[in-house]
């Protein structure tokens, strides 16, 4: 609908075209993002196979803690994304950002662990250093998690385009956090590498990548 020469003409034209609409509901958005996560997870399992070490007690505590924090961040940011699709004024919750801050402890802990282990490592001994462990350098997990996040980002953008987000930058950040955390989680359930260095760095890096991508790429896609 284009602007008219007078407001009365515009109102008459809009009223004439007034048809019933199906309301946009946050639950639909949450359901769509959950479904996208499921699709990404099933695709990862189909490609990389499910890691049975998760159920046989092999997985380290660090692995569970990281995935738990990713799940919490995914839930908080999904809730933020779907809420941001409906126009509103007033204060908005900061739970996704606090969840992201909590998750940031994991890579920081991993880097401190790697640095301190390496500094105190006896290089004359037969025991390999943490930097010599191939798992520490297996960056592909970060890439696969980031690719899986694309499915969640797509679902979020589709839902946001149905809605009317009024804070595009915030919606972009939240989409990035949801895509990164849930994409990483979808891939991580297939990865048998659960050392502190590997999980702390390569299983969380999709969140950082997608947060930046979300902020830069999403706003132009959801502008209305």
């Amino acid at each position, binding site marked *: *609908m*284009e*602007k*008219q020469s007078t*407001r009365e003409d*515009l*109102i*008459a034209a*809009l*009223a*004439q*075209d*007034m*048809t*019933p*609409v*199906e*309301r*946009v*509901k946050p639950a639909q958005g949450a359901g769509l993002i959950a479904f996208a996560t499921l699709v990404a997870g099933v695709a990862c399992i189909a490609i990389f196979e499910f890691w049975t070490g998760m159920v046989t007690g092999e997985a380290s505590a660090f692995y569970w803690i990281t995935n738990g924090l990713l799940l919490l961040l995914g839930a908080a940011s999904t809730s933020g994304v779907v809420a941001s*699709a*409906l*126009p*509103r*004024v*007033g204060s908005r919750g900061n739970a996704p950002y606090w969840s992201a801050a909590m998750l940031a402890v994991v890579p920081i802990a991993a880097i401190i662990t790697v640095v301190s282990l390496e500094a105190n490592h006896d290089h004359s001994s037969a025991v390999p250093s943490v930097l010599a462990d191939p798992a520490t350098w297996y960056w592909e997990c970060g890439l696969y998690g980031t690719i899986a996040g694309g499915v969640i980002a797509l679902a979020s953008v589709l839902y946001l385009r*149905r*809605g*009317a987000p*009024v*804070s595009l930058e915030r919606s972009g950040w939240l989409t990035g956090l949801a895509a990164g955390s849930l994409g990483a989680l979808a891939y991580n359930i297939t990865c048998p590498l659960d050392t502190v260095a590997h999980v702390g760095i390569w299983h969380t890096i999709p969140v950082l990548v997608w947060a930046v991508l979300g902020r830069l790429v999403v706003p132009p896609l959801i502008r*209305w």
Partner: protein
Amino acid sequence: MVADEPTFARLMVAAQDGDKAAGNVLLTEVGVWLERYFRRRVPPHQIDDLVQEVLIAFYTKRATWDPTRPFLPWLAAIARYRWVDHLRKVYKHDGKELMEDDAVEDSDEEVVMARVSLDRLMKQLPDKQARVIEMVKITGLSIREAAQKTGQSESLVKVNIHRGLKKLAAMVEKVE
């Protein structure tokens, strides 16, 4: 008289269900509400244009109102979004419009009203940013002239204009 919250909500429920008569009354009332909303925010000659833009956005996005939530904050959020968009366009594509158009074509009162809202925002900026924005974006001086007048380097003038405009946009977005 502008309709109250329960009236707006009732009309909106009917409009979402496709009631054309309710839609007509609602759009008219929303137009009146928007006119009051924008009166203190944009120069008078831009109000009708902006009201029409918001009415179209209102119509297009009417499915995003949840009947369990208040209507007016939803409408205010859409109005504010369009207003910020409008300000961005003005700053980005037509930085001199306020000064040139208003001075030539509009009454003194309109110029004063436009400047009052702008001045209120400008007061919240650091002085060095406000001064160069005023000189370059409003008065129309070149970057070099502003640099000479303020004693800042040309690149610093550009940085201060960029940061100041970004802050202004952020301040406008925070206005509830």
